[in-house]
């Protein structure tokens, strides 16, 4: 385990293995007091089917980076490539799960998922589309409330539907911005399991921001640590070598767990 390095040398992967490639990324927000450089010289490669978690201090630019990958936030300089080609705005290859569930409260849970499915499977029959929605709602354990309005279900249930909606459009990359931040720890544990379960089956790449070090270790293949802003970049990357499927109990009893944990905490407190 290395201590925090001044200039972290980014590991490079063979290009046919890379799903997401951030090159020399820069983000500048113009403010009344002049330009504010949030991100600068940010390099990161994420492999196919990898689960990446991102940690860093509040305000360092995690959300900014994720929304740029999602295509919701323009890039000031540098490149974001998905499977080798630069992104142009948002696209169905990148699903997003926001911190707040962001379901349309006037639609039912089923209709919320259907909203994306209609667009993602334009050639499917009505029955097929309905089956897709039901399948993913079943996966997240929501089959019993298909016809409830989104405003009538709990936060945790809404986030489940959010996960179903994101997976149902069959993205190559799933981007998650503190998706479980507003939930109690019991629900959070359940939803982590749901997420890992679906991620594993669908063979997609996941990038998730979290503030919770334990969550970061439990879910990730690699934990990416961002330096504090302004001009934040990748500070360190920690590979988590636990075998999958992981059990919470086994991990907590594993010796490496505390080494990983210490590494991350050291970085954050540095």
């Amino acid at each position, binding site marked *: 385990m290395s201590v925090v390095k001044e200039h972290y040398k980014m590991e490079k992967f063979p290009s046919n293995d890379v799903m997401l490639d951030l090159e020399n990324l820069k983000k500048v927000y113009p403010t009344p007091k002049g330009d504010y450089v949030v991100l600068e010289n940010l390099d990161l490669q994420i492999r196919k089917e990898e689960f990446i978690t991102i940690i860093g201090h509040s305000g360092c630019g995690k959300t900014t980076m994720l929304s740029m990958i999602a295509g919701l936030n323009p890039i000031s300089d540098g490149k974001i490539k998905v499977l080798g080609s630069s992104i142009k705005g948002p*696209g169905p290859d990148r699903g997003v799960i926001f911190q707040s569930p962001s379901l*349309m409260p*006037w639609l039912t849970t089923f209709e919320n998922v259907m909203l994306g499915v209609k*667009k993602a499977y334009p050639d499917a029959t009505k029955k097929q589309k309905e089956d897709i929605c039901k399948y993913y709602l079943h996966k997240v354990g929501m089959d019993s409330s298909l016809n409830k*309005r989104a*405003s009538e279900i709990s936060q945790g249930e809404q986030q489940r539907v959010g996960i179903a909606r994101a997976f149902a*459009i069959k993205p190559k990359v799933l981007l998650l911005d503190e998706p479980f931040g507003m939930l109690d720890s019991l629900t959070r544990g359940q939803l982590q399991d749901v997420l890992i379960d679906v991620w594993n089956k669908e063979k997609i790449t996941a990038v998730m921001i979290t503030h919770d070090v334990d969550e970061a270790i439990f879910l990730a293949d690699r934990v990416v640590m961002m330096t504090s802003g302004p001009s934040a970049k990748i500070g360190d990357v920690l590979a988590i070598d636990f075998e999958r499927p992981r059990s919470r109990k086994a991990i907590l009893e594993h010796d490496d767990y505390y080494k990983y944990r210490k590494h991350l905490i050291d970085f954050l407190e540095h």
Partner: protein
Amino acid sequence: MKDSIIKVIRFIGFGFLEPLIRLISGEETKKNTKETFNKIGAPILSIFAFLLLWNIGANSLYNSLADSKIEKAREVGGDAEAERIKNIIISAKDKLDGQFIISDDIEDLKKLSEANIHAVALKNDKGTYDINYGLSSDEKKEVPVTLPSPKQTKNAFYTLWVDYKIVRADKKAFKEKTAKLNEQRVADGKNAIVYTGRPSFVDQVVTSLKTVFAGFLLALLIAVPIGIITGLSPTLRTSVNWIIQIFKPVSPVVWLLLVTMIVTTLLRNSEGDSSFIISFISVGLCSMWATLVNTAMGVASVDTDYINVAKVLKLGNFQKIFKVILPASLPLIFTGLRITLSVAWMVLIAIELLAQSPGLGSFVWEEFQNGANDSNAKIIVAMFIIGLIGFALDRIMLFIQNLISFEKETI
């Protein structure tokens, strides 16, 4: 049972009855007695206070006008004349504030000679009523005409009500009489003869409601689509903003004149009454701005979370507008529509008055010009009816809003 009643009354906007229902069902007597007083007792007390103040005000105006009449009489005819006028005015006041009897017993006519009878409406053999007033011709001549008292207003209300029944019966009789003839005329390809008698107060109310409804629909059809389009495009919004800013504060009177110029030119060759068209278009144009501004604002300020979801899911324009933007901005659109309806009702009276189109506005104006001794009281009746209808319209809008809105808590 109780809970579902409470749910219903809350839903239709009569939530103030809730503590009373709870009280009757014997629930938390102390708390609900207090609540009942707060929500029902106190408003009723304030109504009595209002009537009391009104009565005092109206009587003091009456008395001051009476005093100057008596003084004038003294100058012209001396003390005897002053005394005579004074007696007339005192007895007239009793009759103005007196009872209004609706009866089918001819014996009741005799009561007219009593001191405190305002009028006797007697059922006649045609099935309608003849109204006989208590005021003698001397009293009619000398009675001070000023702000009517609550009782006078109540009597004017009865007068209008009985008059409505008279007109209704008259209309019915006319229809029966002309039914055969009209059939013949229609068969011959001629126009049917229509009733051209005087409209009753209720007819005027109905006409006004029709006009305001047509105006409101016009406002809705213009303002909502334009609001959505301008809300969606910032460029369009800034480019048409000046139109909104300039035309929004324009007075109803000017709108009426503008619409009159255009409509009379366009309809110069067609026969028939264009005043209805002129007034409903004016009402629509005056009142649509609140909806336009609110719709544009609602559409422009949809939560960025929802917009981001729409972007990430790559929704098409149709889906984006109908599944995301419109539902999200519905609360603001409805707020706009409620303002529009209340503005429409408010300006309607002024516009009808000026456009000489039938309705409450022209009723008020005609009564004002008429200057009979119960005209002022009829105007006050119209004022209350106008207020109550405005209130009811707002409640109906609120009801519809609650019905279709996803946020159930707006009251």
